[in-house]
């Protein structure tokens, strides 16, 4: 016989730990963007794969039930169905967890959507380690790498709720395939990234001359925090947020390589194939510079609460600060 004393509940860590501007889900930004698009563009339709409550495409479904479709647990089918609808003039948002799109649906994404430049918007939620309790099987840290390598595919990783909403809307007005990456948890609101969203444009949030911290997605808040902490230590760290990982804002990247001594990249994604290697690729050709990559170090994740996993995998401001201090000392900058 079991009784309630057997339950020692694990305290739930509030997410995020602290932010004066509050926090919200990026996938809610997706849902609110969709709802606006429902009004703006009558040919926007949404297809989900039995995860409409989880992706929040159900929010759109409530208002536009006749423009929402559910394939059941069949992500490959969804992606090719979306391609078909785009051929007939609709703008489908095909949505599921990132794991089920980028890996399960990799061929459909590449050959049904990217190859013919289908006007499909692929909306991937539950991306990155902060997916949490479901564990490694659901924490996709490889989707940016996969999607960056597909020709014709634009890859967008919004940094907070508002940017997610604006990016969703911008994607619908852009012609061609777009991969949008959202998380599962709530993440800090970052007012600095709330200006007009332009695909392919970076945002320089802090000026700096010693080093540049490049962020994408939800790492933007940690990048800003790190720069402020470094300032107190006498280090001037530029912060550039790149919500569009592909095409990359090369000009701003090269400028940072020329004007600052070294670069640090921060992403909630594998250090293989993500933002870090995208930047290293550009600088290697145009202005060779040291690039230090912070991300998931080529390992599978594990179950845990979102916020503790971000700590555990070193995706915090403190980890950025430590890296910058270590490099500054090591290289004698």
């Amino acid at each position, binding site marked *: 016989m*079991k009784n309630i004393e057997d339950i020692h509940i694990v305290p739930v860590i509030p997410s995020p730990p602290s932010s004066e501007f509050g926090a919200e889900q990026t996938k809610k930004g997706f849902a609110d963007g969709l709802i606006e698009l429902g009004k703006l563009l009558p040919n926007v339709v949404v297809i989900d794969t039995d*995860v*409409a409550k989880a992706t929040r495409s159900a929010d759109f479904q409530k208002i536009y039930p006749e423009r929402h479709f559910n394939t059941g647990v069949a992500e490959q089918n969804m992606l090719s169905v979306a391609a078909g609808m785009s051929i007939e003039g609709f703008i489908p948002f095909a949505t599921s967890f990132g794991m089920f799109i980028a890996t399960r649906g990799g061929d459909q994404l590449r050959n049904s959507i990217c190859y013919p430049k289908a006007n499909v918007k692929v909306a991937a939620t539950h991306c990155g380690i902060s997916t949490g309790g479901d*564990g*490694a099987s659901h924490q996709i840290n490889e989707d940016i790498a996969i999607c960056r390598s597909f020709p014709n595919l634009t890859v967008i990783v919004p940094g907070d709720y508002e940017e997610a909403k604006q990016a969703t809307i911008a994607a619908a007005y852009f012609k061609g395939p777009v991969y949008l990456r959202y998380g599962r948890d709530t993440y800090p609101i970052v007012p600095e990234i709330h200006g007009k969203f332009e695909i392919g444009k970076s945002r320089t949030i802090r000026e700096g001359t010693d080093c540049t911290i490049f962020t994408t997605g939800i790492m933007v808040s940690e990048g800003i925090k790190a720069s402020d902490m470094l300032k107190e230590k006498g280090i001037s760290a530029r912060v550039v947020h790149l919500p569009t990982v592909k095409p990359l804002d090369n000009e701003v990247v090269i400028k940072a390589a020329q004007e600052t001594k070294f670069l640090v990249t921060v992403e909630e994604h594998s250090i293989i194939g993500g933002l870090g290697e995208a930047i290293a690729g550009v600088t290697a050709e145009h202005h060779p510079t040291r690039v230090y990559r912070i991300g998931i170090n080529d390992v599978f994740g594990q179950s*845990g609460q979102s916020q503790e996993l971000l700590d555990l995998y070193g995706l915090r401001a403190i980890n950025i600060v430590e890296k910058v201090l270590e490099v500054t000392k090591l290289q004698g900058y």
Partner: protein
Amino acid sequence: MLTQEKLNFLKDKAKEIRQEIIIMITRAASGHVGGSMSAVEILVSLYHHIMKHDSQNPKWTERDRFIMGKGHATPVYYAVLADCGYIPKEDLLGFRRPGSYLQGHPKQYTEKGIEVSTGTLGLSLSTTCGMALSAKLKGEKQNYFCLCGDGEIQEGQIWEAAMFANKYKLNNIIAFVDRNYMQSDGYSEDIMPLDPLEPKWEAFGWEVFSIDGHDFEQIINTVEKAMLSDKPVMIVARTIKGKGVSFMENDNTWHGSPPNLETAMRALGELV
């Protein structure tokens, strides 16, 4: 044949497993209750009556294998493995916690009875085919049991595996569909209709049985028949999602949301 004594034993086990499911998920504040509860009788029948296995010898070649297709139902899986002695009871405290091998979805760990990694739906029946084919090639006689969700079998790969098993006459596979008529977004027949389900499997060359998935006698008698089949066998087990706790039954809120402490107490109160 099942004696009354054994039947009572299995019923008691089912109750204990259901309690453990509630406790594990409440403690972790994360996990899938509904689909764990619907599969209790199937797993208890397999591990406590049907399967040849020995927790003291988890790598025994001749053991029957169980593959958890609907990987989100780890609470029922881990609770049963712990009950059989594969997993130390105190390790259940680590469910869905960093550093624990008891991941949200099964991570292969043969020593602890976890035969195959699953989690993204639709992979398991193919893996089962690969294992079952290998057993045939090696001349081994054990059975391969696989449990799929009804939502899970909407994946195209399941039907690729169905054809494969038929082609290679893998009659050492006995699979179950946990037919609780529900999935993540609601009722299966609304999300993506599967009925008539049995004829689909028959058309793919499988022998099909249709049973009440909470009735131990039906489960056990059916598997005994299935073992004599010269085809791969699919047992469509009609179940109730959330079975055993009145307010969780057929309420899909409990697909993936954990109960809080108060709700867990109410649930445990019904599981005495």
